[in-house]
């Protein structure tokens, strides 16, 4: 637990530094906002339409693939730490697991999911 307390101290010092610099900057910087200055940037034109525009739905697909394979990595970490005193069984087991996921990757590949248009 003591080790985590040290991390907590580090976190608090980090937040403290950030807040301190914000405070200092607020004390000395000028502030002169007006309507034209507070407009969103759009190459010096009047912004057209909503800022929250549509974007490619492939981003979602990649996010889904990421979740699948990141969970795989989560399973691999404890396996790798304990690998020294696990038997041949653990090796074969994990190889089957990785193979299944690799199969999934190649399936997605052939389906064209990984292709960025």
């Amino acid at each position, binding site marked *: 637990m003591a080790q985590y307390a040290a991390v907590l101290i580090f976190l608090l010092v980090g937040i403290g530094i950030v807040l301190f610099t914000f405070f200092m900057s607020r004390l000395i910087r000028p502030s002169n906002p007006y309507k034209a200055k507070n407009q969103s940037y759009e190459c010096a034109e009047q912004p057209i339409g909503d*800022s929250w525009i549509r974007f490619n739905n492939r981003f979602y697909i990649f996010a889904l693939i990421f979740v699948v394979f990141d969970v795989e990595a989560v399973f691999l970490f404890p396996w790798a730490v304990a690998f020294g005193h696990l038997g041949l069984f653990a090796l074969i087991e994990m190889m089957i697991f990785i193979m299944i996921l690799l199969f999934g990757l190649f399936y997605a590949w052939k389906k064209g999911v990984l*292709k960025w248009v």
Partner: protein
Amino acid sequence: MSTVTFLIVSAVKVTVIVTVVLMGVAWATWLERKLLGRFQHRIGPNMAGPYGLLQPIADAIKLIFKEDIVPDKAEKITYALAPIISFIPALLSFAVVPVSDTLTIFGQKIDMVISDLNIGILFVFAVTSLGVYGMVLAGWSSGSKYSLLGGIRSSAQMISYEVSYGLSIIGVILLANTLSMVELVEQQDSFFNWFIFRQPLGFVLFVICAVAETNRSPFDLPEAESELVAGYLTEYSSMRYSLFFMAEYANMIAVSSVATTIFLGGWQGPILPPFLWFVIKVFFFMCFYIWIRATLPRLRYDMLMNFGWKVLFPLALANVMVTAFLQRL
């Protein structure tokens, strides 16, 4: 060690590390501009102080005095939080990096690491992957089209490389059977025990993914100036902008420190004091970062995604499988 001593020692260590990191961040910007200048047959910063060494201070003063502009369309709270969320994780990963050998002061044995967590590597990965939230929130809450596109791009890029980033060090963990950074360094006690020699492919994958994770050239698409202005940074100014800037450089130094610890033997080395060895190795990494920025052009977005998923990821998995087999034979 009693609680009071522990608290005092921790506070001192935290203060020293934070100061050194912030100094490192400041002069990393100087190093980058100077080296890039030299790479392009220019002189680089040379006006403020000898060799332009005071340039970072001049920049900091300038940024503090700048007006802070909050666009009307921005989501005020997330807009203010995003730089903090981006910067704190970058700083926090230094908590588990051992910078030197155990030191004995006043009869007390003091580990030269803020916290020897037994899950050190996992902590680094958990914390650094939080940085993506800062970018996404910044992009989304700025209320600008460029920011939104930049934020979404950067999140997709970071999660694509995050998987290979995590897998690239599983080979090392298979050999070392520990997640503690301190134990990892202790296992690399002689030159040929460095994990770079026992896991060469893992090292290459780690470096490539690290460059992508820190959004540095040639993977700096989130802030591709030529098409997205400054990506998720477009609407930021003053101190908030400089926090993002500091976060980028702090991330670079953090990744360099982690790579040094995992693959290059951390503070291990002959003759020179351990701390100096650590600094030299990190410095080498920073120069490497800047070198590839000066050398390589930016990737196209579809190439970036293809490379991440169709090359790096299968390679990382193959590395894990081959290492496991060799270890068992």
